[in-house]
């Protein structure tokens, strides 16, 4: 190696050396951007462009089967504001979101706390909570739909046996929300628990020791040491759950016994916003892409607003600092 550098030092004339220097400086400045560019290029093609294009389509009366398209300005959005089915879908989505996310994050926190103690076979349990996550979403929805089925479902069989009687889960407003929330909770609790667990393990033991010396019992330690230290993680999980929860589609779509039309029940009792978008675009023979795009953008704004609200609420958790 030393021989090579010696040759270089001798052979390269000063002018070329200056060029190299300049290239090296350029390399230091430009290369980092080149290294991260694949993400931004892909994001521009598959994220930004569809977003902008959907925005454009939402200003037109585009229909999949109609070759002529006209610019209609904000007409789709105006119609959307007066569309009772859209607001019904918003209400359903928020309802299902609340009754699935709140218990789910709470359960995940408790689960993470338990997994953080010295259990026998801890690794096994930690892996087991992630199992629902790697199960196919369609399989989950189909199995749970069978469990909740009116005449031959396992849940109704048990309820009937203990004297409560059968419940028509799919037909009822709140019963259908509960059934769907159970699917969401089952699938996502373990995932959030693992995120909490990782954050919990980053909390220094000294804090707990100090708390113990001050006489704090485990429950008090949980509230006053663990939770404040988890604050950034809780904010993260709440935001991610908001984004995912408001886009709920597969579970309610497959929950519907006759899912042609994607109406989410006979009285649209569990039609989510994305299902409504699908109904207007591809799920029926309406193919109203312009209107569906407007729904997409409305959902985007809705998620932004609710994420912000959640962020402001969760920020009030007392920080560890």
């Amino acid at each position, binding site marked *: 190696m030393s021989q090579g550098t010696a040759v270089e030092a001798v052979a390269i004339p000063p002018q070329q050396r200056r060029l190299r220097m300049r290239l090296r400086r350029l390399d230091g400045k430009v290369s980092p951007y080149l290294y991260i560019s694949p993400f931004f290029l892909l994001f521009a093609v598959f994220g930004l462009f569809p977003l902008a294009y959907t925005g454009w389509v939402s200003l037109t009366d585009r229909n999949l*089967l109609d*070759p002529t398209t006209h610019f209609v300005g904000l007409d789709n959005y105006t119609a959307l504001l007066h569309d009772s089915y859209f607001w019904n879908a918003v209400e359903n989505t928020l309802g299902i979101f609340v009754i699935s996310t709140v218990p789910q994050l709470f359960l995940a926190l408790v689960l993470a706390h338990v997994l953080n103690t010295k259990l026998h076979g801890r690794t096994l349990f930690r892996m087991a909570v992630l199992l629902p996550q790697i199960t196919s979403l369609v399989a989950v929805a*189909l199995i749970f739909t069978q469990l909740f089925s*009116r005449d031959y479902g396992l849940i109704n069989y048990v309820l009937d046996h203990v004297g409560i009687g059968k419940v028509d889960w799919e037909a009822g407003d709140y019963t259908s929300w509960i059934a769907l929330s159970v699917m969401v909770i089952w699938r996502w609790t373990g995932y959030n628990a693992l995120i909490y667990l990782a954050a919990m393990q980053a909390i220094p033991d000294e804090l707990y020791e100090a708390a113990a010396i001050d006489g704090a019992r485990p429950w008090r330690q949980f509230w006053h040491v663990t939770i404040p230290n988890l604050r950034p993680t809780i904010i993260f999980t709440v935001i991610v759950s908001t984004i995912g929860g408001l886009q709920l589609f597969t579970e309610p779509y497959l929950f519907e*016994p006759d899912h*042609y*039309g994607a109406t989410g029940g006979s*009285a649209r009792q569990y039609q989510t916003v994305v299902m409504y978008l699908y109904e207007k675009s591809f*799920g029926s023979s309406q193919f109203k892409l312009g209107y569906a795009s407007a729904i997409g953008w409305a959902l985007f704004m809705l998620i932004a607003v609710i994420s912000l609200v959640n962020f402001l609420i969760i920020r009030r958790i007392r920080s560890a600092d």
Partner: protein
Amino acid sequence: MVKYIRSRGRGRLVALLALTALVAAGATAGSAVGKARDTITLRVSLFGDFGYHNVYAAYEKSHPNINIVEDIQSYPDHHSNLAKHIATGAGADDIEAIEVGFVAQFKAQPQYFYDLRQFGASALKSRWLPWKWQQSIAPNGAQIGLGTDVGSLAICYRADLFKKAGLPSNRAAVSKLWPTWKDYIAVGKRFQAHAPKGVHFFDSGSNVYNAMIGQLNPAYYDAKGNVIVSSNPGVRAAWALTVAGIQAGESAGLAAFSNDWNTGYKKGVFATVTCPAWMMGYIQGQAPNTSGKWDIAAVPGGGGNWGGSFLAIPKQSKHPQEAYDLIKFLTSPASEAYVFKNTGNLPSQPALLKSQPVQNFRNPFFSNAPVGKIFANSALVLKPQVTGPHQGDIQTAATNATQRVEQHKQSPNASWNQFLKDVQNVS
């Protein structure tokens, strides 16, 4: 053809899709190596099983340069994908099935399909029932598809349950019980009075309602293409009768093609079901244990149609002539007769409907009922219905409306009013 494919078929569908993908991969690999220029692969996109497998094999044998690959999807997915594929200009197969509920919508855009007259289809016109031929003609006169089957109606009923409820169980006597739908609902009341516990007269209000709608002409659209749901007294009458049946406790309240509906066949929780010809195959697949307990009677009101399809060639096809030759073969009298015997899908060609093999065909699963005669004669007297682009969505709205009454979510009047509002919304 089977109008919907539900959960039962899903696993099999996935396997089938994987298989077709494999076959396709093998075929392209094979052709690239060997007789590259000679072999033409024709892709056929269907919903549900049209019963064509052996027909393809026969065709490939007589046409060694043709290789046929079939793609099967569910009923809703197939049609929405077809719309996507023709609108975006890529992805459609050489041959695409279109169900009668969608044909009005696709023929309104004839620029996306080959006009089959350019291949000489006009010469075959006399093969089909005149209205079947007419249904796939675009407003500009182009013929965009050749007819496969029709779904003429009958009533499939459980003779054993009829006997238990003290009703006649012989098919001629049963047919005499219900010359009209009003009689059918009245028989339901008699049945319900003595029915075994947990057994209902029919499966779902929507199937009874749709059967009545299937006999109307006009029903949802008039000849000019206007939606006439709210002003058509026939639609209102069908609704009122359906509601009367539901309120008399005759409905098992099972959404058609749901899991519980499928299980309902096995457990025998409903005694009658509206039966288009293709439904025979569905029942046999769902409840093989009930063989011999079923029988088939005439449909109240006579005639009526539910389902039936066409085969069309999208403009994207690179081999339209070969594709046309294939659909001509698939819809030939010999093929349609073969498919009827094996799957129950009823031919759409009068000569065939009147032929001895069809007329004499009996189905052992349905107590040896002369199903050929029943369905063929029903098809021959069938009065065609004018359909429109949003036929399928109006039907979905109607199904939801009957379910709201069954599930006690709304009063019949409120549900009807919401149905009318939905109709306005989709069209």
